[in-house]
């Protein structure tokens, strides 16, 4: 819930949550009082939402990434590769050093 309010803003007064999943033909209506927001998913895809309901729906569906979050995931992955590479270098270096000593 805290994530939704962080991304979508404060829940409007009198907001009624609708179960959209039970209605495949549901069309979101634009809320003129709601400032459009750009959402991201884990793969970097982006979508604009124009109402609190639409925003909430997308965030609950996993569109809760931000560019910062995406870049962090990417950096953590890169860090993983760097660490694996460094580990491999360390092991190879030590094995080689032992081999030369013999």
């Amino acid at each position: 819930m805290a994530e939704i309010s962080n991304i979508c803003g404060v829940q409007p007064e009198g907001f009624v949550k609708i179960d959209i999943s039970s209605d495949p033909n549901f069309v979101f209506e634009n809320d003129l009082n709601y400032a459009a927001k750009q959402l991201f998913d884990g793969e970097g895809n982006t979508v604009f939402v124009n109402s609190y309901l639409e925003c909430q729906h997308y965030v609950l569906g996993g569109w809760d990434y931000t560019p910062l979050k995406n870049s962090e995931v990417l950096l953590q992955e890169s860090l993983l590769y760097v660490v694996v590479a460094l580990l491999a270098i360390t092991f190879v270096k030590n094995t080689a050093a032992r081999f030369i000593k013999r």
Partner: protein
Amino acid sequence: MKTKKVGTIVLLVLVVFIPWFNMDTSNDYSIPKVSQEDTSFYEVYPCKISLTEFILSNPESIYQNHFYFRPDNRSSIQCFGRVSGVTVLQKGLVTQFFISVGTSSLINLLLQAFIWIALFSFIPKNTDIEKNKDVFKYKNLIILLTAYLLTFSIYAESRFYEKQLYLVDFQEIKSYGLIFLIFTLVIKNFVETFVNRSENIVNYLPYLYLVTGLFSGFNLSFFAIIFLYFGLQSNLIGIKNKLFSYTYIIISIWWLFNSKGSAFFNVGKLRGFTSSIFEFNANLFWIVFTYFLIKGIWRIYILNKNSFRFSLFTKNLSITSAILLTLGVVSANLPIFNFINYYVLGLQRYGVESKTPFAFDEYAVKISWRGIFPSSETIGEFYGLCLLCLMFYVFNTSKVKLVHYVGIFTSSLGLYFSDNRTAMTLIFISSLVYFFAIRKNNIKINRSKIMYSLPIIFTFIYFIQSNISTNGYEFMSESVIAKTFTFQKEYALSSFSTLITSPDVSSVISFVFGFISFLGYILNRSEMWGFFTARYNPTFNELLFGSGPLNFGQLYGEIPVNSPESLLLPHSSVLSYLVFIGLIPIGVLLFIFLKDLYVNRANSELLLFSIYIFINIFKNDSMNYFSPFVMYTTLYLFLRSKKDLLNFGKSSSQ
């Protein structure tokens, strides 16, 4: 060799300073000066400007004491070295600026480990690497096991780490993969460095007080890896300490069965050597950690019995003492160095803010000054220990060098600044005793003298009881319980305070507690021990066997008290260990210690050292910090094994 050292120094300087230049080159920001009225720039652009850019725009932040640089461990990797936020607080007439600097915990692991490994590499290598081949046995297996153990600690204390690691899902096993690999890399490189220097580690122990080696954002001490390594190795190669191992395992089973519920503990300045939560997994980790730590210390002692050089040890004590004092003054005066020191040295707590170590309060009482160490009493103990060792050295050798004079001067100054009066008194008495009596063999301790002195001691206690004036002794012997009443809430009485205050309590318990309370009054410990009594709520079995090593969760989580503002530790390592291991193991350890001391009674240095440490840890929390724990146990073992201290100095050429 020299080129290699210079290269390491250059690399070290680069690694220490370059991260703080991490700027956002995609935009050109016009960075305003931070002010009381407006910090909006830093709200709009978090993690955009580097620490260096901030300092260039606010040069006064280098030296003005109302700037506080704080690491923000729960920030993104991209944010490393950048300003992640600025908070303005008004404290009286002073406006304080807290500048959060992004220090992603994952990067800290790599960066800080690199710095400490590089520093460690300055320790000279073993003279004969082939001599001690045992230290290489099962190396890679031990590295993996240690990495696993440390990763397990992240899982076990995930509640603590949730606030320290950014975007790490603690419910997902794959999240631990990256952490495990980083630990493996760090441990692998560190092990490769220290196994080649294993002989010299003990001589460089004093530097543990300077480079504490705590990863920012982690409840782990980097240097514990050495002891875990040797502890695990001693188990794998089958070094038997059967009695210790079996006893420890049996008590551990009780500790684990007893780990019910969950009580969080704010680790504060004990970070790195205490559990953040009283829970099964956390207790399991700290039980295993303590076991291998003790085994590791023993193994290092066995391996390096003959490589301990007292001259080199005192030299390093002197250097550490001088650097500690200097860095303390620098940290107190320059906020940016306070932050850099905290990060680079891996400190438990930020350096002291008080610029004047000579300061007195309005009642003309000296204000204790701790420099960069987390506790003024413990650092006072260290300076006292430094003076004690220097005294042993100076009285026994003619090779006194400038570094020793520097050590004497800085330790004396540091001891005065710390205002540890017990240490000062003990050092003064020790010097007199050592110089006039023990050194000249005027005093010989034997069984009959001990037998004669016991009645004298009891007569002395009786004399104190009856002659201080009945009311005076009664008042002092009830001082702890009086404080307990002020701290405890009526609806939540601890079992310990109930036991002590019960009208049915036996006169022996009442006498013993009364006398301890009297000592507490004299040592100015009534408040702290009263606070402990109000909180300590053991079951009968917990009183006898404790609730698990290095775990304060239960003590601070069970009984609500009228708490004072700050976290009050028990201010006695004996009380802390009563919580950890209980009355029976403490009694057994005390018996072994006294028996050992009696056996080694001819070793005057060991005798003075032991008395100095014992009195200090009785009234201080020093054994709850990693550095003193390792230092005292190791030094005790080495002093114990050498009757003639001069032998240490003679063989040293370094």
